[in-house]
């Protein structure tokens, strides 16, 4: 069966420090991969999505970047975190028009 792993679950980082969040999918191949961010009590904002290795689409210009070094690996990065980068980050995968499967999320607090 397909599973999605996202880590870490929580992270507290100082302003100006780098960030690397990793998401991996098991049990499927060539998934579409997505990074969303959710502010407290709000909806999900799509940050990046990828339909294949090395293919990254950015939805919102910001302090973050994404990479897909392997078919089932999606990484969200930042060179220097800002206070406004705090939030709940969710990774998801899907095929074509199928429903998304979400990871359990990473709570990032930038202090």
């Amino acid at each position, binding site marked *: 069966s397909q599973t999605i792993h*996202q880590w870490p679950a929580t992270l507290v980082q100082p302003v100006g420090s780098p960030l690397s969040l990793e998401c991996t999918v098991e049990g499927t191949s060539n998934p*579409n991969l*997505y990074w*969303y961010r959710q502010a407290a*009590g*709000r*909806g*999900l*904002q*799509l940050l990046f*999505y990828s*339909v294949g290795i090395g293919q990254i689409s950015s*939805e919102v210009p910001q302090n973050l970047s994404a990479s897909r070094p392997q078919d089932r690996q999606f990484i969200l990065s930042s060179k220097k975190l800002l206070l406004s980068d705090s939030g*709940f980050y*969710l990774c*998801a995968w*899907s095929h074509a*028009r199928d*429903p*998304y*499967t*979400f*990871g*359990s*999320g990473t*709570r990032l607090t930038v202090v």
Partner: protein
Amino acid sequence: SQQGEEDPQALSIQEGENATMNCSYKTSINNLQWYRQNSGRGLVHLILIRSNEREKHSGRLRVTLDTSKKSSSLLITASRAADTASYFCATDVLGAQKLVFGQGTRLTINP
């Protein structure tokens, strides 16, 4: 900007009552999906309705879709305390490979 707008933002009802949440969107869609999120967790897919469907059922869930009004509703019948969560609609936008989420409805079921 967010594609979907849920209404109401928050809903509190007694256990056993029915809960209705509404969603409006702006562009043409392939399908519309509803997701549930327990506090601090990832999203879980509930039901998908295609653009050529008008109504769909799954257990205690009933979803309607009116593409002429660009709106959808989610009905949860005979609510239970365990239904307490946030509910999001998401539109699979025609011509895109991504889901756009609304702001969500926070549902509280009082025992």
